[in-house]
């Protein structure tokens, strides 16, 4: 089976429908599947539920789908960097479900691993636990959270092979591995596409069984949200920089 597609649009062909639930990897703008998000915009599907830690920023990432009002609901942990998001949320156009970041990550991991629910101590005694089962284990209280499983997952990886095996780079890994496992169809965009066998099997982060379609997106434009640097100083003699 050939998993590779020539471009993001063809990688999504026939998959995207109104009302679907879609996961999108990334933390802030780091490791987001930007080309695939753009292809969702072109596909034009509406009333989408997006599961993603953040909602991009104005004009970038999922912010692009807010512009076209394709998103009806977001399941996220933090959405602070997006004015359009706030506008649509306050006007009631956009539904929002906040999950603690670790709970969100674990819900996705669990969904992908066939675990329908789990107990966590995160959020016990807070708004997050309202309406959810709370149980005591070994004298401590835990709240039940459900696994998440989507129709489609969009992930970004540094390197992939024709089998769909993926390798992520640095902190661009974030939510991508769990999301790759937690959907009926996972589409991966990769910066480098190689033949099966070229990646050392010991170094593979996401096994290809989780990835149904793969598209080569060389040299993606990667944006930095908070550019922080330090000045290069001349080190005093005898000291390391």
């Amino acid at each position, binding site marked *: 089976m050939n998993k590779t597609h020539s471009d993001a649009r063809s990688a999504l062909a026939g998959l995207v429908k109104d009302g679907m639930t879609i996961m999108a990897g990334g933390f802030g703008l780091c490791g987001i599947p930007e080309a695939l998000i753009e292809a969702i915009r072109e596909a034009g599907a509406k009333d989408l539920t997006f599961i993603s830690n953040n909602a991009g920023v104005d004009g970038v990432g999922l912010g692009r789908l807010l512009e076209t009002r394709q998103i009806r609901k977001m399941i996220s942990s933090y959405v602070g960097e997006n004015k359009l998001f*706030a506008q649509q949320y306050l006007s009631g156009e956009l539904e929002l479900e906040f999950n603690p970041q670790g709970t969100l990550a674990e819900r996705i991991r669990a969904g992908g691993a066939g675990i329908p629910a789990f107990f966590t101590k995160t959020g016990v005694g807070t708004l997050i636990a309202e309406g959810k089962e709370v149980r005591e284990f070994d004298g401590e209280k835990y709240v039940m959270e459900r696994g998440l499983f989507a129709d489609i997952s969009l992930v970004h990886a540094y390197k992939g092979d024709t089998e769909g095996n993926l390798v992520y780079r640095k902190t661009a890994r974030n939510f991508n591995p769990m999301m790759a496992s937690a959907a009926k169809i996972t589409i991966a965009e990769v910066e480098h596409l190689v033949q099966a066998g070229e990646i050392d099997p010991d170094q593979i982060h996401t096994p290809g069984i989780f990835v149904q379609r793969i598209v080569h997106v060389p040299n993606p434009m990667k944006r930095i949200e908070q550019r922080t640097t330090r000045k290069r100083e001349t080190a005093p003699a005898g000291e390391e920089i």
Partner: protein
Amino acid sequence: MRVQLQSENGMLGMGPFPYEGEEDPDLINAGKQTITELSTTSYFSSADSFGMIRGGHIDLSILGAMQVAQNGDLANWMIPGKMVKGMGGAMDLVAGVKRVVVVMEHTAKDEPKLLKACNLPLTGQGVVDLVITDLGVFTIDKKGGTGMTLIERADGVTVDEITVKTEAAFTVALTGKPSNAA
């Protein structure tokens, strides 16, 4: 003492900001700032990261707060009626990290932030161990027991002043001389 910083998006062993021109968009911390790696660095998924946090493998977390109650309750993520940005990883950090330290202004517009009970939605229930403000340092026995204790006051600040600006009940057990806390 060797300190290792964990960044909740998926990195242990966080290094300093990069030199100008060496920023890497694939290498950011939880505040989305560009950072660097160290010889001790490892990368992992956000699920592994919060496994580390929730699983009690992290010793210390330092956070800001809107309100802290004398029983260790913490509120720092939402004000009802205002646009809420989200809790991010804060609820996981306070639920799972062994020791939680809050650093904050003692009051907000002259209103106390150290309260008998929080009236803002909680981030965690009975989670704070230590509060450092511009006026003093308090320990909290979050399992109940001895409650809140003032252990240090800032230079030039009297216990009376702290009492006036604190709603929470606390006992005084000053250790050492006044310091410039916070």
